[in-house]
């Protein structure tokens, strides 16, 4: 039986300074399709790092490679200092993964699931039970621990699934679309837990198709499209790179719509979209200050405002801006 630890011990031991993840040129092909077409990734320790992209961008495949579930066709990667292909078992000892589909046995109770996994990790009977109970308390699931998982709600299942990844505190926690399909309350709760995990020193790599999620949680975001990384940076950097947010203005009456539109256009130097039915105007604004100035100009001119809001660019707008023309960000690290 191959034993990962002997392999790691033979290699220079994973030094504490090694980044959580360091990937170079990872490639995964499915037939003719390059699901992942050469991705570099550097994730420092203790960070929440988001991989943002639409369905089919290659996010999950990238994560599955890093979690040793799918061997890469090309490229190299180290996770917590362990080489992905040379010492996969050592990588497995340092990570945990919560996939997109609940990786729990629905027929068993929540507690049995955690005890089962703890026993696989090598905890004794008693220690396994204690660890399961501690996780149930921490994840606010104690009342449900003796219920079969099939009777859990989506949010509870997701929390149990994340708890199952923390039986041994991992160096890197992979979360594949952790809040897809959850209602807003459950989503907030999962976000809160992810933040606290990161505060306790766990590196979190998560995939998401929600810009808002990446924005809320992640210190750094890599944007992936068609198997390639098209941009990387903090949420602020990405927004700056994609140009702007959108200023939405609703007038109290439709009469001064043309005057207001002309004012906004002059002020923000961008075309204004009009929807006369709702007396609404939308315009790209490069910065919040510029938007603020435009609103002030409208008020100074006596345009009656009912409402205004600065919206983040949608994921589509980010992609459009990025794929449209920001090639220099391709190698950003």
């Amino acid at each position: 039986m191959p034993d990962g630890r002997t392999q790691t011990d033979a290699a220079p031991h994973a030094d504490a300074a090694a980044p959580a993840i360091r990937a170079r040129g990872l490639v995964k092909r499915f037939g003719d399709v390059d699901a992942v077409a050469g991705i570099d990734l550097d994730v420092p320790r203790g960070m929440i790092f988001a991989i943002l992209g639409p369905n089919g961008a290659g996010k999950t495949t990238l994560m599955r490679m890093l979690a040793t579930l799918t061997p890469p066709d090309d490229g190299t990667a180290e996770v917590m200092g362990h080489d992905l292909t040379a010492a996969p078992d050592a990588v497995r000892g340092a990570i945990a993964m919560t996939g997109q589909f609940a990786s729990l046995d629905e027929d068993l109770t929540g507690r049995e699931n955690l005890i089962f996994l703890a026993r696989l990790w090598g905890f004794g009977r008693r220690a396994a039970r204690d660890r399961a109970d501690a996780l149930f308390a921490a994840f606010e699931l104690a009342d449900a621990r003796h219920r079969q998982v099939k009777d859990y709600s989506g949010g509870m299942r997701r929390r149990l699934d994340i708890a199952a990844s923390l039986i041994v505190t991992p160096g890197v926690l992979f979360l594949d679309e952790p809040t897809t399909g959850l209602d807003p309350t459950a989503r907030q709760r999962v976000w809160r837990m992810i933040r606290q995990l990161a505060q306790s020193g766990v590196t979190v790599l998560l995939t998401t198709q929600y810009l808002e999620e990446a924005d809320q949680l992640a210190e750094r975001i890599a944007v992936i499209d068609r198997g390639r990384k098209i941009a990387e940076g903090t949420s602020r950097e990405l927004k700056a790179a994609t140009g702007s947010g959108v200023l939405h203005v609703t007038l109290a009456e439709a009469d001064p719509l043309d005057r207001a539109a002309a004012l906004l256009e002059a002020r923000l130097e961008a075309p204004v979209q009009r929807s006369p039915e709702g007396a609404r105007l939308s315009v790209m604004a490069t910065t919040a200050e510029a938007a603020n100035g435009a609103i002030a100009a409208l008020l100074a001119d006596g345009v009656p405002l009912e409402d205004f809001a600065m919206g983040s660019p949608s994921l589509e707008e980010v992609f459009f801006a990025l794929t449209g023309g920001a090639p220099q960000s391709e190698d950003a690290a």
Partner: protein
Amino acid sequence: MSAPLSGLEPTARPPRPSALSNALTFGWRAVLKFRHVPEQLFDLIMTPLMFTLLFTFVFGGALAGSTGDYLQFFLPGILVQTVAFNAVYSGMNLSTDLGKGLFDRFRSLPIWPLAPFAGLIVGDVLRHLIAGGIILGIGLILGYRPEAGLPGVIAAFALLLTIGFGIGWVFIVLGLLIRTPTTVMTLGFTVLFPVVFASNIMVQPETMPDWLRAFVAVNPVSLMTTAMRGLMAGTASLSQIALALIAPVLLTAALAPLTLRLYQRR
């Protein structure tokens, strides 16, 4: 707002458990499943029970002169059929598990890679014992008498578990290859029905056409049934037992490594 994860101590990895410990943990899961889903027994028992009752009372008199004589002939064979059909359900369960994220979790753990399958096999052994025990019990109530007594029954069940173990690999491989559980079932029964019927489980092959008789003579299911009858009656020869073991041994030797390959490639 309270901090939900407060009080959760960072926990280091305990010493790596042995492969045996991993396998036993998976076996424990199989036992738990029996406790939570006892209705799965219904699936396992109903087919062999119907076969036993229908064949004994409908065809028994015509085939063997009396229902009692037929049951004496038929029961060891229906046990072989029972474990073969059980194996289909186990492949179906595997396919179901694989369709969820459960096996991804297993594969991202630093455990013995074959442990999940060891767990499946523990579950299979339990299923075979329980289903076989119930069918034997019903046979005893209906008048079946193993001439070799308890030692014969124990020897026969040991052989039965070995047979189930061997056949189990076929459906583990199918479960790994086929994504839809119902396809595993349909395919499994499509293969098993002719193999089980074209054997000596239900009737002696004397009245069959030559070509079919030639097949029945080498059909592993026939060899297994002959050995089971022999063990229960106390007349089994070593060569009969050896012949019955050929298929399980070959299947294990060929399919266990294939299972590991398929599993790691997924």
